[in-house]
């Protein structure tokens, strides 16, 4: 029994990171139409900044803040300076453009911080308690709790606030939204900032809980996209559930010895199945936006 609990908890922690990543992607995609492949690279830059500030001897909270700030700055930079010229292009072209941004960030981050072995330690790693003989650190609680809260908060934000309403309007029809006087630039910038902050936060937790390596964090975007696909790139709730399920399934498969080496396939298999299921009624592609 204990062993299952341990795997479950480990899976929930990783799964909530996928979920957090997926939520950040979906928020941005809904408001701006961009599926941001650079999300992982932004997270990687934020994680490295966090490590750097801790290494320079800054207090924890300063480092965490710098990390999240890095995410916001990078994300908003793309949103303000590069995204507008792509606003009317097809979604796939927008996504490919973010690949370019991802490569730039990854190249710079790998250049600045060479391949030395580093580890990111947050003070919350040392604090923990026991649940069914399993030790759970506060960092894991934060990862899980924050993804839950963020998912809830974002849903409420989009439902209840005016900016949220405007974001949903933008997602529905950009041209009409502009016509009825929605401040597109402002709303989009908020979305980029929010998504960037989430990327920064996710990157920091990923660097602590999983591994502090720019390349690995950059390509964490792939399972995060899988989680987002579970939510059809639209639903925050389903993205959240998808991310958690992928994380837990991945961890539990470790127990099945023959399947263990292939367990990371879960995210991709799930994503492909969801896409197929979504398209089940469609026979042809007649110039839809996607």
């Amino acid at each position, binding site marked *: 029994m204990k062993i299952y609990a341990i795997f479950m908890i480990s899976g929930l922690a990783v799964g909530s990171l996928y979920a957090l990543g997926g939520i950040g992607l979906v928020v941005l995609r809904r408001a701006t139409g961009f599926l941001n492949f650079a999300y992982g690279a932004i997270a990687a830059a934020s994680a490295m900044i966090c490590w750097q500030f801790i290494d320079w001897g800054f207090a924890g909270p300063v480092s965490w803040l710098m990390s999240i700030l890095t995410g916001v700055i990078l994300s908003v930079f793309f949103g303000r300076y590069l995204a507008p010229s792509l606003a009317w292009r097809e979604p796939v072209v927008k996504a490919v*453009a973010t690949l370019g941004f991802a490569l730039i960030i990854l190249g710079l981050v790998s*250049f600045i911080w060479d391949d030395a072995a580093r580890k990111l330690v947050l003070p919350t790693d040392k604090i923990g308690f026991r649940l069914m003989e399993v030790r759970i650190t506060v960092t894991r609680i934060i990862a899980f709790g924050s993804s839950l809260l963020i998912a809830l908060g974002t849903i409420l934000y989009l439902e209840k606030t005016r900016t949220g309403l405007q974001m949903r309007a933008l997602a529905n029809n950009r041209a009409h939204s502009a016509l009825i006087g929605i401040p597109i630039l402002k709303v989009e910038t908020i979305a980029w900032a929010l998504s960037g902050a989430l990327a920064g936060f996710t990157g920091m937790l990923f660097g602590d809980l999983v591994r502090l390596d720019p390349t690995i964090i950059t390509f964490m975007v792939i399972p995060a996209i899988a989680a987002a*696909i579970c939510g059809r790139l639209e639903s925050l709730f389903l993205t959240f559930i998808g991310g958690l399920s992928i994380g837990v399934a991945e961890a539990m498969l470790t127990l099945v010895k023959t399947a263990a080496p292939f367990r*990371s396939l879960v995210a*991709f298999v799930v994503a*492909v199945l969801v896409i197929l299921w979504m398209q089940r009624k*469609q026979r042809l*592609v007649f110039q839809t936006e996607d």
Partner: protein
Amino acid sequence: MDVISHFRQESRTYAALGFVAICVIVLPVVIDSIWVKVLTSAVIFTLAAYGISLLYSQLGLVNLSQVALIGVGGWIMLRLNYAVQLPFELNLLVSAVITAFIGMILALPAMRMKGLYLALITLMVAGGFQIIFSAIQFPNGGAGFLGVALQSPGEMRRPLIAESDTAYLRYSIIVVVLGVMLAAAHNRGRPGRAWAMIRKSEANAMAAGVNVTLYKLWCFTLSGFLAGVSGGLLAGALKILDAKSFPAGESILLFALSIVGGVGHWMGAVIAGFLYRVVPAIFNNIGIDADLSLVIFGAALLHAIMTAPNGIAGQLSSLFQSLGRQNK
């Protein structure tokens, strides 16, 4: 066809032939051994990049799993090498055909999709193969279906006429040229016309009696075939393959560089192969951190997406055209 355009067509063909002749005859002789190896890789990836270019330019489809398919081709090539004593060419052909078949199966779900969701499916496939490769490894002469031995690798045979590195570079260039010609012939023929109609509008293409599913599958299969040939050639060039060479990130990078090079033209694929393998090697050689090449590639991709949809090849050709006009 009037005389001038015929002449232009012909001179273009001669230019292409001249380019290939220089590559085959002169280059392998004048360059150092390391550059023979680097160029061999670049040439091999050119063919795979041409597959990406074909899908993007003909059908507007984003393929983010090409390097994974190269890995599949390489895996089958190594597996055949250790399993049967057949000539290199036959193994290469079988690897390419099986890879094309796998590419086709992967394309089946894509039949009802285009744009973003298709790109995502291919990305998921690339991610999946990354896991599979590192779980099963590449054959190195061991027993069993997977053929992995816990020891030093066995001997990967090269073609009898191309045992040395320079000969193998020439051999690869010729195979790649044949591959590009095969694809170009498709482009000019019936499939090319069908693809053009599908790209404009699937509904119209269907109304005009084009079998949309068939021709879409055809394009994927062809692209997979080119990736399979690349993988087989790569196995022969390196003699051992490693899972580390085929992660999803590399598929993304090769796609990006294909766009940068310019889709729809063989020169674009050549530029993509050059950027993918030669530029990092040059950086390495002159002591610049190869990570910085990523920064340049990323910027070039953004530039290509935003302002130069035909890539470097397109810019070069319009440069030549405007020069030609000035000379008149």
